[in-house]
């Protein structure tokens, strides 16, 4: 250590104190992780199943007469299913990025997945909302047609107002927030990737 140009970094490096946790604790954590993963999968699917069951129940119990009602129901269910499907798929590709490749390959994969996520979050969210609105409007038609003109206008007006608030205010805000996060991550990963060039 006396020589200016020859600091023994290796020696210093290895002097860092280290405490090795008990391996059993680690394995316990593995199981915890697994259980948490299964639970979230279960919850997502239960929610989907419950909503579908409810809509099917409505279909059977109220016996809609109009074809528009039935199409509305199908479109609404499809919108939810497609959204959940895409979301789950993205999640699983994300979880299964090969961690044993080189840093360079890994970084490129991370960037790619983030870009996919960026696209999905905007396009899919818009698609989901548009389809949902369309489905609900179709579904309401049968019941609205039995109401007075005022009642029907009110029902459609309120529904469309709610959807408009979502479409023009809540959704863009949410997308902007998510985009900001993803963009800054992509930027960061690209910057790191450049260090390797």
């Amino acid at each position, binding site marked *: 250590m006396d020589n200016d140009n020859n600091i023994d970094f290796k020696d210093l490096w290895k002097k860092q104190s280290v405490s090795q946790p008990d391996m059993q604790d680690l394995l316990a954590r593995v199981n915890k992780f697994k259980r948490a993963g299964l639970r979230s999968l279960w919850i997502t699917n239960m929610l989907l199943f419950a909503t579908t069951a409810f809509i099917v129940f409505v279909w059977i119990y109220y016996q809609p007469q109009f074809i528009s009602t039935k199409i509305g129901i199908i479109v609404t269910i499809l919108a939810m299913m497609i959204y959940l499907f895409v979301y789950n798929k993205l999640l699983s590709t994300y979880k299964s990025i090969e961690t*044993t490749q080189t840093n360079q390959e890994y970084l490129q994969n991370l960037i790619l997945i983030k870009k996919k996520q960026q696209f999905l979050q905007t396009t899919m969210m818009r698609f989901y909302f548009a389809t949902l609105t369309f489905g609900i409007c179709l579904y309401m038609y049968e019941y609205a047609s039995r109401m007075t003109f005022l009642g029907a206008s009110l029902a459609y007006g309120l529904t469309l107002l709610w959807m408009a608030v979502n479409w023009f205010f809540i959704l863009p805000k949410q997308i902007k927030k998510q985009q900001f996060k993803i963009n800054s991550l992509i930027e960061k990963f690209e910057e790191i990737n450049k260090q390797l060039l």
Partner: protein
Amino acid sequence: MEFEEIYKTYWDRIFRLCMGFVNDYDAAQDLAQETFIIVWQKLETFRNESSIGTWIFRIASNNCLRQIEKQKRFPKSELPIHLSEEKQTSLEPQIQFLYKCIAELPETERIIISLELEDVRQAEIAKIIGLSEANVRVKIHRIKEKLTQKFKENGQR
């Protein structure tokens, strides 16, 4: 190689790599644990194409890179774990200074120098990072110069 054996052999090395990356004892502990969880899950798929060391260091360094994202998403340490030992921090200021300097380097340089200090061969480092060996050699040389410079400026000799 059995997991237990890997765990015992590599824990210290992986922990130091993570520590060099984040310079935070708890965060490094978390990162090292995550690394071994992945190792435990993937051990079956390990086919001696590379040495086990290269394989594990790849997982560890990729996990370090990925935590950049988690840093922004989750609060630190979602699942606290009971350590069998008391938390220790190195008392020697020189050691602390070294880790601090390394953690301030660009991300890939942190990984490269940590591996070098762990006595990983340069050919192996090249395989872990995904660079040519010549490139790695140049980088190591430059990083060491940077560190020496910082130590001099700080009067830490």
